[in-house]
């Protein structure tokens, strides 16, 4: 590959960074400002798209740019996993941009310039996280992501928002520091922090005491696990729902939390390697934590009346599906995880979009107030139903597909308890989503619904499109962007096998 | 180097230092400090450091003393400790 394509990962990171000054400068003219956002999103998506053919061939594009710390290069590499993640993040940014225009204006929010600028910044760092070629670069972008999401979480500037943002910052900064400490320990032991499919050969070959290995693993797992919402560390996520809905939808369903689970994948698959983890017995720890999380989170989701909080707990649960899949360390399990990253992203973003549309249009955020709302907002609730069905795991939506693969993984690994919990949690998903749908469709609406129609097209079109995407990817997993093929390539790299699944 | 002489000077130095610190009237303190400096100068000279003694006599006993007096006149000469 030539020089130009080597620069694509860097450009993909920089695009939205360049958009920030433009956004800031055009703060007086909202239309111009939003078109910058749009333009950046489209260019970014195009750049990521251009990487797909290479990634499908299993190639890695990009490389070290310069040393950012002694012995540690600043490395942006688009390997298949990175492209996969970047694809989801940048693709959904386009929809979110459109949606946030509708949401922010419809809601009459203040400080919109700051909002869009911080949004572009966090997308930049998400792509950076995706393309980071070594753990150090990963950490750098991971921390920038933390910082740039802070203004978004705190956007409303209410006391609740400030509290939530503080909580968010405390959790994620601590996690970042532990990650740094873990990286430091690892670096001193092995002298490298590069990501290597199947685990660092320097680590596998070395004879580190298992106690030290455990320390490193725990530090790193907490570091990435906080953003992935693993159970004892999850509580920032429901609080962060104080943020405006576009933020919740893209960042807390896609970018931030997914960079957490992405980090789990990177740490376990590309740093330690599954072999080492199984030898250590760390997979059991991960499995117990994630299985616990997905069960308890589903229970907690039942109790929430606030729609966004219920979605948040559902997110916590679904993130644990992914971690669980990784912890199985079998091919189907990990494949299921990777696919669920994509599936959950499209479905959960739909649900959040719907929640936002309902909030802007009807000023309702509690589930108990939604009686009969489907009659005034048919499109929104149709999309919501699709998303809910997908998360429950009903075919032909893509959620079914990934869950099925996950279940196969548990069988393959011979882990029956996780399988049981998986099924149980699927049922519980149904249990907490369908009452909402049923309420909206079948209960008679109150008087306050009169005079309200469907939401602004700026919001409806994105949410319907993402719902459509879920269905399309469920039916044709290789449509447009070859999600399944990409995931297969990733598996080949991780498990070092050739050929089909 | 007459060590008996030095010993006497040392005792005198300690005495002067204590009085300088304990006197209630700061002017007494300053005078005792000058005495202290002058004894120290003698001691230096007797130890063979003629020029140090010389300087100490001029500076420590002379100029510093004057500066102390001025400072005290600018402020207050009484103290409780």
């Amino acid at each position, binding site marked *: 590959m030539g020089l130009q394509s080597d620069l694509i990962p860097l450009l993909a990171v920089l695009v939205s960074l360049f958009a920030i000054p433009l956004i800031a400068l055009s703060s007086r003219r909202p239309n111009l400002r939003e078109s910058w956002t749009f333009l950046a999103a489209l260019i970014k998506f195009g750049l990521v798209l251009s990487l797909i053919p290479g990634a499908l061939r299993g190639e890695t594009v990009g490389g070290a740019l*310069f*040393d950012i*710390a*002694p012995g540690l290069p600043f490395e942006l590499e688009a390997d298949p996993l990175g492209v996969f993640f970047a694809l989801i993040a940048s693709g959904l940014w386009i929809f979110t941009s459109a949606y946030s225009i509708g949401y922010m204006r419809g809601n009459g929010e203040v400080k919109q310039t700051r909002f869009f600028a911080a949004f572009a910044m966090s997308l930049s760092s998400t792509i950076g996280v995706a393309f980071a070629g070594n753990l150090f670069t990963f950490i750098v972008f991971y921390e920038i992501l*933390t*910082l740039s999401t802070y203004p978004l979480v705190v956007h409303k500037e209410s006391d609740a928002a*400030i509290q939530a943002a503080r909580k968010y910052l405390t959790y994620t*900064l601590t996690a970042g520091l532990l990650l740094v*400490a873990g990286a430091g320990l690892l670096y001193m032991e092995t002298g490298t922090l590069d990501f290597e499919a199947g685990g660092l050969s320097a680590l596998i070959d070395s004879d580190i005491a298992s106690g030290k290995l455990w320390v490193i693993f725990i530090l790193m797992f907490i570091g990435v696990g906080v953003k992935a919402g693993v159970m004892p560390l999850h509580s920032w996520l429901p609080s962060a729902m104080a943020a405006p809905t576009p933020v919740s939808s893209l960042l807390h369903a896609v970018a931030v939390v997914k960079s957490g689970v992405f980090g789990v994948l990177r740490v376990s698959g590309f740093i330690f390697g599954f072999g080492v983890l199984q030898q250590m017995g760390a997979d059991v720890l991960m499995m117990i934590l994630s299985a616990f999380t997905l069960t308890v989170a589903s229970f907690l989701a039942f109790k929430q009346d606030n729609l966004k909080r219920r979605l948040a707990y559902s997110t916590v649960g679904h993130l644990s599906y992914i971690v669980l899949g990784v912890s199985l360390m079998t091919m189907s399990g990990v494949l299921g995880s990777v696919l669920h990253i994509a599936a959950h992203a499209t479905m959960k973003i739909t649900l959040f979009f719907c929640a936002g549309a309902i909030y802007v249009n009807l000023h309702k955020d509690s589930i108990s107030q939604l009686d009969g709302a489907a009659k005034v907002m048919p499109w929104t609730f149709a999309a919501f139903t699709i998303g809910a069905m997908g998360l429950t795991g009903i075919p032909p939506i893509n959620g079914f597909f990934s869950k099925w693969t996950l279940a196969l993984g548990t069988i393959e690994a011979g882990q029956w308890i996780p399988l049981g919990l998986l099924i149980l949690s699927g049922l519980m998903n149904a249990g907490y989503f369908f009452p909402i749908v049923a309420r909206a469709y079948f209960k008679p609406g109150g008087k306050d619904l009169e005079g309200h129609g469907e939401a602004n097209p700026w919001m409806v079109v994105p949410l319907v499109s993402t719902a459509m995407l879920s269905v399309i990817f469920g039916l044709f997993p290789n449509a447009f962007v070859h999600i399944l093929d990409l995931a297969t390539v990733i598996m080949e790299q991780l498990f070092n096998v050739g050929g089909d699944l | 180097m007459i060590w008996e002489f030095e010993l006497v000077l040392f005792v005198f130095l300690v005495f002067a230092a204590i009085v300088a610190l304990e006197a209630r009237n700061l002017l007494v303190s300053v005078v005792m400090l000058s005495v202290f400096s002058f004894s120290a100068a003698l001691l230096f000279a007797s130890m063979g450091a003629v020029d140090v003694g010389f300087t100490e006599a001029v500076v420590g006993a002379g100029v510093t003393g004057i500066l102390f007096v001025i400072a005290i006149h600018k402020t207050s000469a009484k103290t409780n400790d």
Partner: protein
Amino acid sequence: MFVVSYISISLLIVLAGVRFKESAQPLATFGAGVTAVLSLVGWIVVKANTEAGFPAIRYGFGGWAPPIGIEFVLDGLSAFFLMVVNGVAAVVLWHSAGNLDKHLDAHPPTFYALASLFLLGLNGMILTGDLFNLYVFLEISSLSSYALIAIGSRQAPLAAFRYLILGTVGGTLYLIGVGFMYAMTGTLNMIDMMAIIPLIAEEPAVLVALLLMIVGIGVKAALFPLYGWLPESYTQTNSISSALIAPIGTKVAAYVMIRVLLFVFGASGLNAVWPLSEVIAYLAGAGILFGSIMAILQKNLKRMLAFSSVSQIGYILMGVALMNPLAFAGALFHVLNHAIMKATLFMVSSHLERQEESVDIRDFNDSYRVKYPWTMATFTLAAISMIGLPPMAGFFSKWMLALGTIEADHWVLLGVILTSSLLNAVYFFGILEKVYLRRSGQKEASQASMNEVSWGMRLPALILALALLGFGFFNVPLLDILQTLFPV
């Protein structure tokens, strides 16, 4: 050879510049700027020399051979410190031009004479190759800093007086230590002494001398239990002095610590009898935590920054005491970072003090965002670097320090570094929240209008803050060199 003479000339420019009563500020700034450029030249020459395998540049005054005469030594370490000190000082003095009218009741020539004398002392401390001469320069810089600190609020002279008492004790203890070393080795020259120390390292007198010197310099460097003078001094003095003294004053004391402990005594000499380096490392660790916690409790921005200095000095001394190249490079890099960060933050506090008459954190509110957009942007950059988040420079020095603690197997200290980063985040984000977020009971930002200080003040602060970003991205060449400076 000629480099050192250049530097001594530049010192003369500083000294001579201030004597002309008119236009003291431009002259002083010019002097500091020339010195900064010269130290950059010196750094480059030393680097070239080291690569070519030449030893450090030594310059004997009066043509006397080093053991008798006084000599100046320019090696990598001193070149680095010269660069940091003079560079930051030049920017601070440039910045002070816009602030003169408000904050100096004394007439400017006196002030700039003192400031230049202060810089002269610091430069001398860095360059000298002689322990006694170091004491003289130490006192020159200390005396001028007492006077600089005394210009300020009502309590400033008292703070300065207390600093004077403590500082003089520190300096004198150092001098006694030097006396012991002289009695033991018969030389005052650092390079000569370095050769003799391994032979006598276990003598009790050497231990006493070492302890005295550590305590003496520790006072100046605000090593943990000896930091007492620092917070009051930085809080009460005027904002120009605090911006000048806080970033570089303690750094040079840290330099002396490095020079004496690592270069003169060396690791073996230092730990010959007691594991003193461990003691210093843990004291520094205690200082880091103590400083951070005290900083959280403060209501006054300047006092908060002062306590934060106590904690940041802890990082530097800890890196020195860990005795490995990684931590050493981290400490030196932190010297650079902290000098820039503290200068920036104190400049910001001077902007606020100038416009608002108060630096009480409780008074900060949403309107500051509108009134001082540039100042606050600068503050944010410096604060993020202070917390140690990538890609700001502060992260990389902490990274190196963390690697150093791992290398030395000091897990507790690793924990200290991590904890204090969080504590830093607590107090800096507390301010950022106040400034950028509207809370109930706060003034409406919409009622405020832009009330920014002049560009002459905004620009230097902004340049320093951006320098932090630059050093963050391109730290590797510097860190590589700094690692090689560690004495084997």
